[in-house]
């Protein structure tokens, strides 16, 4: 689920923090910059693991702060393909089942990846697995808050950095609201034996 990512960055320490130990200031600045943020094509950054190398710190003319090039390793949430994870159902919609891990929310299980046959109950807004046995069909509901085991089948990164002002269509862009897209989304699947709500597979 979590990987270690080696990164290099230049950290700026303002003069009023010079009395603190350099390592502590740098750790705080890196966490302030990266914690709980998604880095494009890398994943969701959690926290600093360690600092591997500190290069010389420079002070540039016109700016009293010191700039230090830092080599460090960061703990990043980036599940590998086909990894099995356990999350909780946030809700259901016609697009599929939305799952959350608490610290990461943008996981979707599309209708075609649910245990088949499945149907969407419009009245209660939940997806239902119509499980057939010799006795008859059981309707297994996927309710909000239930723990669910799923497999990661796809991930997508969207670059949400702001684009510059567009020269043409200045009036139309001010009327439309910018679409809020999640920078990092996972697509899951529960179409295998053992996947789905934990209560479906526990024999107690």
């Amino acid at each position, binding site marked *: *689920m*979590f*990987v*270690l*990512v*080696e*990164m*290099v*960055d230049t950290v700026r320490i303002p003069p009023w923090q010079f009395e603190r130990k350099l390592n502590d200031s740098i750790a*705080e600045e890196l*966490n*302030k910059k990266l*914690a*709980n*943020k998604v*880095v494009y*094509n*890398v994943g969701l950054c*959690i*926290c600093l*693991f360690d600092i591997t190398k500190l290069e010389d710190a420079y002070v540039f003319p016109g700016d009293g702060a010191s700039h230090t090039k830092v*080599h460090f*390793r960061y*703990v990043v949430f*980036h599940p*590998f393909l*086909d*990894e*099995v994870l*356990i999350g909780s159902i946030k809700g259901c919609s016609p697009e599929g089942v939305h799952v959350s*891990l*608490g*610290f990461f929310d943008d996981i979707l299980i599309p209708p075609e990846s649910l245990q088949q046959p499945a149907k969407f109950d419009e009245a209660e807004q939940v997806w239902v697995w119509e499980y057939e046995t010799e006795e008859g069909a059981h309707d297994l509901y996927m309710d909000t808050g239930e723990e669910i*085991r799923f*497999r990661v089948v796809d991930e997508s990164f969207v670059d949400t950095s702001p684009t510059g002002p567009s020269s043409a269509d200045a009036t139309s862009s001010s009327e439309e609201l910018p679409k809020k897209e999640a920078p990092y989304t996972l697509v899951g699947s529960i179409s*295998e*034996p*053992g*996947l789905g709500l934990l209560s479906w*597979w526990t*024999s107690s």
Partner: protein
Amino acid sequence: MEVKDASAALLSNYEVFQLLTDMKEQRKESGKNKHSSGQQNLNTITYETLKYISKTPCRHQSPEIVREFLTAVKSHKLTKAEKLQLLNHRPVTAVEIQLMVEESEERLTEEQIEALLHTVTSILPAGPEAEQKQNTSDDVTMDEEDPA
């Protein structure tokens, strides 16, 4: 900012749990330093991740347990990713093993799957839910002994 290596190492949930708990202790000891400013993101993600991992069996692991587990499963010739998933999830049924180990029907015989399950359940500590079940069953036995 430059990313030198996007996958330098895989971390188990226990290692991340340990790191975040140690970091929380250190920050508590060093006193309140600017709680409301830029530290808010770090606080949020630390709290949520700790909450998630605390609900899994990983919170009771230790470096010795992990080492013992890895030596015990060496004979089954599992890939790194498979061993990591077994460590993070602690499967108790054969179905769960089939999910985490690729082509388990071809690579492992039934006895090997049983042996693997036994290794997992005996070496790795159970999660918080299993502890709750144990507590309730203990209460029942205590009541039966009281009248005697």
